[in-house]
């Protein structure tokens, strides 16, 4: 048994990490989080594929709604030509919208993020991030990127297939390049905004310990106010005004609306910019909550 003598306390061992080393940390976290994600391959694949089921019911639902609208229009003798529209959306638009929100949700939904943070606070697992020279929120973010990458890898083919089968609903084809660029940026924004919203929610556990009912309320609000359930243009004007002031719409509505040209061309970049402001605000809020929370934290659980 040979033992290397204690490392001399030279300074080079203790200086801050260089940018290259930081990239190394991020890459390793990403790689390991991916590996962990794939530890339960079967369950993961099944879960990914099951997410496609709701589309079918949703398409049928809107099909029935539009059929009813059409029928009542013809009964009332309305003579206007063209297919019926709801809040500026025809049936094909609605299906296209729904498919696109599915893509946006694939970026913005963060299953288990806030409850995971709350659990780590409650049972003391968060200690490990306080002891090691690693940033907790940064760690969570990179792990989440890894989760998403794993998800897209599995979901890409089914997504492509569904969009191919449903290509008829996209009557305007691909949007022009700048709009497409704005669409992709808004997807990234929806990921980051979704992340920081749920991170803030989870960090509230420093005060309340249990956040599952808060998460439930958040999910409910999210479902209605993000445009996941129906396009936000269907809301009455007064409500719409309020919803426009909230960040939820970036989680589903905004990316889809940009793609479908439902955001006026002059307003596309403004929408993206406001989303960016939300992102900065939420990221700052999460930092603040984390710092304040740690002050309160008493290191529960042994």
């Amino acid at each position, binding site marked *: 048994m040979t033992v290397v003598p204690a490392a001399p306390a030279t300074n080079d061992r203790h200086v801050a990490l260089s940018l290259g080393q930081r990239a190394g940390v991020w890459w390793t976290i990403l790689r390991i989080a991916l590996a962990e994600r794939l530890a339960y391959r079967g369950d993961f694949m099944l879960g990914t594929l099951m997410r496609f089921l709701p589309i079918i019911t949703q398409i049928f639902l809107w099909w029935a709604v539009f059929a009813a609208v059409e029928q009542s229009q013809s009964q009332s003798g309305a003579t206007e030509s063209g297919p019926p529209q709801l809040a500026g959306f025809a049936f094909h638009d609605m299906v296209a919208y729904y498919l696109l929100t599915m893509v946006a949700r694939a970026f913005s939904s963060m299953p288990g993020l806030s409850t995971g943070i709350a659990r780590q606070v409650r049972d003391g697992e968060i200690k490990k991030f306080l002891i090691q020279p690693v940033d907790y929120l940064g760690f969570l973010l990179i792990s989440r990127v890894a989760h998403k990458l794993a998800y897209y890898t599995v979901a890409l083919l089914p997504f492509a297939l569904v969009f191919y089968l449903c290509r008829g609903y996209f009557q305007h084809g691909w949007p022009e390049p700048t709009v497409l660029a704005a669409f992709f940026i808004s997807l990234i924004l929806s990921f980051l905004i979704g992340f920081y919203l749920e991170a803030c929610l989870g960090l509230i556990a420093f005060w309340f310990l249990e956040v599952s009912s808060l998460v439930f309320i958040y999910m409910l609000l999210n479902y209605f106010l993000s445009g996941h359930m129906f396009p936000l243009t269907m809301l009455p004007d007064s409500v719409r005004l309020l919803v426009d002031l909230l960040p939820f719409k970036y989680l589903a509505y905004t990316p889809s609306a940009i793609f479908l040209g439902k955001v006026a061309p002059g307003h596309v970049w403004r929408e993206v910019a406001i989303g960016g402001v939300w992102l900065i605000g939420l990221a700052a809020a999460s930092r603040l909550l984390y710092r304040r929370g740690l002050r309160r934290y008493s*290191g529960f659980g042994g």
Partner: protein
Amino acid sequence: MAQIEVSQLTKSYRVFRKQEGLWASVRGLFHREYGEVQALRGIDLRVERGEFVAFLGPNGAGKTTTLKLLSGVIYPTSGTARVMGFIPWERQDAYRRRFALVMGQKNQLWWDLPANESYRLHQQIYGITEDDFRATLDELTDLLDVRRLLGQPVRELSLGERMKMELIAALLHRPEVLFLDEPTIGLDVVAQHNIQQFLRHYQQARQITILLTSHYMKDVAALCQRVVIIAKGAVQYDGSLSGIVDSFSGSKVISLQFPDGLEPSNLSEYGTLIKQEWPRVQLRVARQQVAQQLTRILNVYPIEDVVVEDPPLEEVIANVFHSVDEKSTAAEPTSSGSAR
């Protein structure tokens, strides 16, 4: 400068006091009563580089709270602490690269992945060069004899194996100060022994500073030259292990072996009878009277064998805890419940 300097460190928690029952729960929604639990009531401590110090104390005495403060996981209510010159709760990276905390009941490793992967992450987080990483990992896996387990998911390892893996993870960056919170909790005797051996060897070779809390007296006896007894949030004793007996126990135990057939009934004249299993008898005798009483006995009876020893350490320490407990309840009858 000492490696660890703690002065007048206190920590109190605000805890929500809830009465039993449903109605109390409902009331608790609107009106909450809080109580202060004083986990630490002014700890002073000085540890030099290369010391191996044990914290002993009953559950809730403040041992873990002290370790949490020193690792910067929580903030103190008042007082100061410096470890290697750093204030722990500022959590500077420069400090966090130089110490490690291992908790027997907590996992640092990724549950579903082989330990190898977690070690790679540590390598990156702590900025360990590839050569250092290889050398340290080789050394530690050899010492702990776990090379074949490196590629197995952590969830498949036994408790003892997992603890060894945790230790490796904590030592990869060659910390100069190591905090161990119940490192052998729940382990069988063999695994406990393995871990003790490793810790002793490693600490001696590296001359690192270790603070250890443990309920197993064997851990403490095997490892630590210095013992700090913490009870009721304060240091009750600080010194060598054998010194505990000297300062807290005023008596010795005399074991006598009588010849077959001789069973005198008046032995309690000489001391307190602890055990009586003919032909063996154990008496507790006040320290100052040992020589005197022993002479009297030897004069009267034909004794075949005599042993004079200190009472068992566990017993002495249990008495220390107990007396501290009685003193404080007497001093402050409204003393709040046990600390976390």
